């Protein structure tokens, strides 16, 4: 597959895997409004995944469904943050906040890509990220400044998530090549703004920026946490058990 196809595919993986995670909240959120919000956010991710995986598939004649349902764990190249289990509400909201800030910068930059289709998809995604971020930023604040319990849980979530954020800003050879050609986003360039914005919000929410001494990577190389396989077994069950099944 071409470089651009591979790039679109990994971005599609990011959206698909987090979308699937967020779907797990459906009927499990603490209140009805949040249930709707989480399901709606999941739908945005799913829609984004479909656009990106269809585009990726167009380079070698594969359908979006083949890419979503018939690849094994090691063939997925999503960032690890996307596949982590939802945890409690604080964990899901803290992850969403960290990612929404990242995606705000990422899609604004990708909207300038020299690849027209990627730029168009990013232009749509950027609009959706804007309202995702309004909500997750509000929740970070509410949970941080809420009760001792909500503060402690949100802090614990940030502490656990922090080591996975380094991967957001690391480039591999594929992305370096594409960034040099004006196609891909240089993610290293997003880090300073991300850190400044996230630090301000965490501090204002009465929380501490974690000082984590570890970080983990591997997603972009297809090396995952133990959680992805379990997620895929649920996501892919129907197509694996009944190949070619359609509505």
């Amino acid at each position, binding site marked *: 597959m071409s470089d651009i196809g591979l790039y679109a595919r990994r971005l599609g993986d990011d959206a698909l895997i987090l979308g699937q995670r967020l779907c797990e909240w459906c009927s499990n959120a603490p209140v009805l409004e949040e249930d709707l919000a989480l399901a709606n956010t999941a739908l945005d*991710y799913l829609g984004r995944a479909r656009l990106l995986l269809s585009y990726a598939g167009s380079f070698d004649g594969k359908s979006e469904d083949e890419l979503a349902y018939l690849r094994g764990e090691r063939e997925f190249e999503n960032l690890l943050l996307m596949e982590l289990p939802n945890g409690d509400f604080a964990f899901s909201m803290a992850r969403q906040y960290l990612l929404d800030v990242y995606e705000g910068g990422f899609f604004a930059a990708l909207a300038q890509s020299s690849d027209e289709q990627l730029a168009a998809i990013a232009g749509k995604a950027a609009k*959706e990220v804007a309202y995702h971020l309004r909500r997750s930023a509000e929740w970070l604040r509410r949970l941080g400044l809420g009760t001792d319990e909500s503060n402690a849980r949100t802090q614990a979530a940030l502490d656990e998530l922090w080591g996975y954020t380094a991967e957001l800003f690391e480039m591999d050879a594929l992305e370096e090549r594409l960034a040099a050609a004006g196609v891909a986003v240089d993610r290293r360039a997003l880090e300073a703004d991300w850190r400044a914005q996230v630090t301000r919000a965490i501090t204002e929410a009465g929380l501490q920026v974690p000082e984590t001494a570890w970080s983990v990577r591997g997603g972009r190389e297809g090396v995952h946490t133990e959680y992805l396989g379990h997620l895929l077994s649920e996501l892919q069950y129907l197509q694996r058990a009944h190949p070619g099944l359609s509505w």
Partner: protein
Amino acid sequence: MVAHDVIELVPQARVDMRRRRSSSPCADLFDVLDAVRDPEIPVLSIWDLGILQDVRRDADAVVVTITPTYSGCPAMQQIESDIIDALHQAGETQVLVERQLAPAWSSDWMDADARRRLREYGIAPLYDLRCPQCGSDEVERVSEFGSTACKALYRCLACREPFDQFKRI
């Protein structure tokens, strides 16, 4: 609150859409497609919503260009098949629907008349957040996410009724 005039600025993309329609050799097909409604908001057609971009003939086929609203909106699939049905019924045998992503869809493409119909239907349009039931502007947002991707949930503090807002994006 002081009464003020609202200046309606029309986005360039909407102006272009209107121009394509008024100068189109397929004006009759645009008219046919006015019957295609949003399945969730039947008072609005796909033209009202700014989803319908263009209709043209390409050899024996009719090609319809649409801009999807939200990436994950499940209504888009229904709308595509409604477009094909409507044109089949109008005697067109070969219909193709093309999706155009850029410029990204904006709720600002909705005309003033469509916003009025939305309000009458009970949904507050975009920045006009008065309660559709009693008209009060004492309202609060309950959630940025309503019953569908395009709506947010509000509550009127005067009459206590909940209502949807068609989001601005």
